[in-house]
């Protein structure tokens, strides 16, 4: 069995930042990632990021990814790619499949930064070829340079739906419309404006009734809804499309946290069930930390800050030192980022998580 001070599961923005922060404080770090290259979703983010200068706003996601990979390499962080952390067992032993072999790794500390999965939406024929998650579509066009459809209907007008619609236009597809069940656009207006300038209609208070096709998607039936979200059937309409993209949110990928025995709470604004953690990102299981989307769906910018916080906190425990000032600065940057309609709600949910952590830890 291999023994490590810190094992980070998931080398996306949170995991990479955690690794860099911990390594800089003298901790030996191993990152385990199931992909062929680390960086998580950063490399498909070809748009500029939001926030202030400290949040690397104005920089495109993949550039941030390249910067983080360079730093990880220079610091000598060990990275296992194409490696699956398939389970967490007693005494922080992690089961990993690497190069087709089963390896058990015993860790003093673990940071779980496994990200999220896309939410599905079910309607008749959603299992036909030609229906896919918007995130998957973004990976295809921006990473693999494959256009999965020529005439696209986007379901959901959150930031993912809007950004991927725009990137589909850039990739040469026609976006025939964006469907949104709510009476207003879900994402930032700046992203909505970009696709509106291309003449893409955004159908508000509208839902998809079914996909149409025999072997694959040939069209979709969309329909306006009333104030109770009930379809007004007589107003339904057929649109010819060969790709339906689903952008209806994400769910934290938290199975490993369950297996580790962490306590959970439900936070709708953060995408569902999330592990309780304290202000250092430590879960209710000592020396198991969490960071990024798997601790609540937010943005790459917040994932990176949470990663740094977790990385420094691990270093504090292992080395018996304190870096409170540095951590306070990170917490301030997190607070500064959690603003606006969605940011505020996420901020409150995150504060509840910390509060519930202390309530539950006390009653143990």
């Amino acid at each position, binding site marked *: 069995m291999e023994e490590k001070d810190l094992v980070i599961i998931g080398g996306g923005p949170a995991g990479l930042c955690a690794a860099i922060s911990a390594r800089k404080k003298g901790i030996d770090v191993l990152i385990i990632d*199931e992909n062929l290259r680390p960086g998580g979703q950063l490399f498909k983010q070809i748009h500029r990021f939001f926030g202030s200068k400290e949040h690397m706003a104005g920089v495109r996601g993949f550039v941030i990814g390249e910067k983080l990979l360079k730093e990880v390499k220079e610091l000598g962080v060990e990275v296992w790619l194409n490696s*699956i*952390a*398939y*389970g*967490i*067992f007693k005494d922080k032993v992690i*089961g990993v*499949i690497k190069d*087709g*072999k*089963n390896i058990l790794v015993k860790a003093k500390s673990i940071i779980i930064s496994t990200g999220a*999965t896309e*939410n*599905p939406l*079910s*309607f*008749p024929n*959603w*299992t036909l070829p030609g229906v896919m998650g918007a995130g998957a579509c973004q990976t295809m066009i921006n990473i693999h340079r494959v256009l999965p459809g020529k005439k696209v209907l986007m379901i959901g007008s959150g930031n993912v739906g809007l950004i991927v619609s725009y990137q589909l236009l850039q990739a040469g597809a026609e976006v025939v419309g964006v469907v949104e069940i709510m009476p207003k656009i879900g994402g930032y207006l700046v992203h909505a404006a970009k696709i509106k300038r291309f003449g893409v209609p955004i159908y508000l208070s509208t839902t998809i009734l*079914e996909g149409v096709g025999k072997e694959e998607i040939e069209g979709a039936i969309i329909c306006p809804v009333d104030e109770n979200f009930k379809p007004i059937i007589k107003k339904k309409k057929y649109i010819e499309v060969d790709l339906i993209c689903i952008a209806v949110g994400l*769910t934290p*990928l938290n*199975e*490993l946290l*369950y*297996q580790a025995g962490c306590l959970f709470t*439900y936070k*709708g604004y953060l995408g*569902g*069930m999330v592990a309780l953690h304290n202000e250092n990102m430590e879960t209710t299981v000592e020396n198991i930390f969490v960071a990024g989307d798997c601790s609540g769906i937010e943005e790459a910018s917040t994932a990176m800050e949470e990663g740094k916080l977790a990385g420094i906190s691990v270093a504090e425990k292992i080395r018996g030192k304190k870096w409170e000032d540095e951590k306070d600065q990170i917490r301030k940057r997190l607070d500064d980022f959690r603003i606006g309609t969605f940011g505020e709600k996420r901020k409150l949910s995150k504060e509840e998580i910390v509060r519930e952590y202390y309530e539950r830890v006390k009653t143990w």
Partner: protein
Amino acid sequence: MKNKKIICRCKEITEEEIIEVIKKGIRDIDGIKRALGAGMGLCQGKTCTNLIIRIINRETGIPIEKIRQQTSRAPVRPIQIKIISD
């Protein structure tokens, strides 16, 4: 399968089948799994769990946060058992 809404795509379980077992009194994800096998395919419920939770919520009125999640066990990814049995 015309116009039927598949919920668990790995095991091809439809919404009708799930509603039927909810009517018989099943109220959580593990129960649906035992009754129908939904969530026991290749993706191990990564796709259908949220859909099933919403169906239970809609059919019974139980708040989403009160609906018990499925128990998570290793392996969290489809892997060959022969690799870990060595």
